[in-house]
């Protein structure tokens, strides 16, 4: 398992409080993250939350939701409380997929977000799939951004597989959100390189996935790095070794019990 995949697992349908612009999981312990996903007692939430509901208050990852759509109104409420009750300048980031925009909760939340002027960064990871359903079955518009016109919420569609573009767009977005206390949508066009869930066939052909794999964000970032092939390989090896070691350790960890 690659780290970016772990991040995707955690962030999808997650609510995150953005204090500074940095990779929120940078510096966060990998061990309790993997342990929580595997249901071990050493996980962030002692195995109670699992991958679906993982939360880590240390890095202000407030909560994750399994059911599509739920995260958005909760994020709106959180952003409201922080801005108008706690009077902080925090920005709340909520992560969801394009499929979420078919859900009533999303639209109810957009309505409130705009009316209540909440500092909310809406991060839509658009991969053109809802589980194993293609776009034509759930998205009547070309983009998710178009849908935001109905609420008067500004949106920006970018290549979500390019880390640099994502960082710049996010920096601009968060600055504006903080200043104007308004919701803002970043539509990240991205790709899903693996199946929706284990044991389920993919609706796409192998050729289609292979074509999408050329846009792998790690490859895009790798091409940009001005380092030797040797260094690149070393980085890959080191990271994979670190992850493998964590997995090996987590496997030995105790399962939670109830007294």
């Amino acid at each position, binding site marked *: 398992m690659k780290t970016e995949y772990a991040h995707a697992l955690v962030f999808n349908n997650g*609510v995150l409080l953005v204090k500074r612009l940095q990779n929120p999981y940078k510096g966060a312990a990998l061990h309790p993250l993997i342990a929580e996903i595997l249901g071990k007692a050493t996980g962030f*939430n002692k195995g*109670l*939350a699992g991958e679906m*509901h993982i*939360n880590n*208050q240390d890095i202000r990852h*407030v*909560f994750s*939701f399994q*059911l599509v759509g*739920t995260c958005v*109104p*909760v*994020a*709106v*409420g*959180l*952003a*409201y*409380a*922080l801005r*108008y*009750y*706690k009077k902080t300048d925090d920005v709340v980031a909520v992560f969801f997929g394009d499929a979420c925009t078919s859900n*009533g*909760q999303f639209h*109810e*939340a957009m*309505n*409130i977000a705009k*009316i*209540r002027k909440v500092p909310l960064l809406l991060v839509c990871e658009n991969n053109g799939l809802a589980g194993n359903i293609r776009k034509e079955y759930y998205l009547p518009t070309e983009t998710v951004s178009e849908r935001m016109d109905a609420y008067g919420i500004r949106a920006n569609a970018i290549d979500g597989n390019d880390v640099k573009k994502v960082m710049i767009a996010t920096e601009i977005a968060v600055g504006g959100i903080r200043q104007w206390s308004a919701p803002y949508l970043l539509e990240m066009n991205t790709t899903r390189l693996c199946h929706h869930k284990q044991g389920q066939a993919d609706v796409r052909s192998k050729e289609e996935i292979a074509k999408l794999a050329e846009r792998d964000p790690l490859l895009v970032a790798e091409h940009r790095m001005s380092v030797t092939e040797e260094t690149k390989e070393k980085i890959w090896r080191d990271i994979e070794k670190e992850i493998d070691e964590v997995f090996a350790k987590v496997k030995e960890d105790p399962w939670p019990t109830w007294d």
Partner: protein
Amino acid sequence: MSKSDPWFRNRLIRDAIYHAIYDRMKVDPSIHLMGEGSHMKIYFDAPHILKEFPHRIITLPISEDANTNFAVGMALGGAKPIVDVITADFLYRTMDSICNTVPKEHFTSSPKTIIIRSEFMTASPTTGQRPEALFTHIPGLNVVVPSNPLDARGLMDTALETKAATLFFEDRMIEDKTTNPEDMDTHLDIIPLGKGKIRRKGHKLTTVSYALTLRMLDLLLERENLEYELIDLRSIYPVDYDLIVESVNRTGALLIVEPDVTYAGVGAEIASQISERCFEALCHPVKRLGAPRTTIPASRSLHDYMLPSEKRILEVAEELSK
């Protein structure tokens, strides 16, 4: 059931709820009131709250599900939300947030104070349902249904001090003339969640009820001068089983009268628990009386069929007390 105006409002219970909220708001800046038309509702029901804490009232659109989830977000941000879902029928529109978001967030992270308010009326198929029993089945939710202003005030006070999600029901079908205004001004008992109260002492039969039917029974037993014990559940989750067990062990019989559909209702659970715990003491099978499993008709003349008649209650009680 009352034959008076179906839009009847029980001012006293509502006033008591707002008394508790107001008193707590004065000392706890985290309490926020929100829901559909909150400004308007509070303007009519508790104008002093609107005047003193205008920024702690949040009027939200008619989007029940997002509203309750918004409240969850507020709680995550350190506030104590009281979200008003208006009538109990609307709770079905926010089942996802009440059952999937609230308790699961509490379970996997940490419990926070969230109060979901709703009221019972009776008028037609979707403006008079009583879904309270459904919520007693969901782990992580407390469900309270006070039968009088003093309990309403005390229970709201407790709910606001408890780190848990509480569904707080207000029974608008209880007639004003059966409640006492002075209740609200007398000293305030601390009412822990899950503590019932013996309303009437008796030795021939234990009757258990809550909210509307509790009031019905109270008046009926008073008028008929019957020596039946009457227990007010006050909260239907958690239930004060110790109190019921102690009483049934003394009387040897139990009659549960509920304002909700009897089938798979609150009474069914109590009947089952008491049959298990007091089998030796029971002289008769536990009996339940309540609403039929029928959609509530719109016509006022049909509402009387929605609850057991006084005649029926007396017949069954007489049988059980032999």
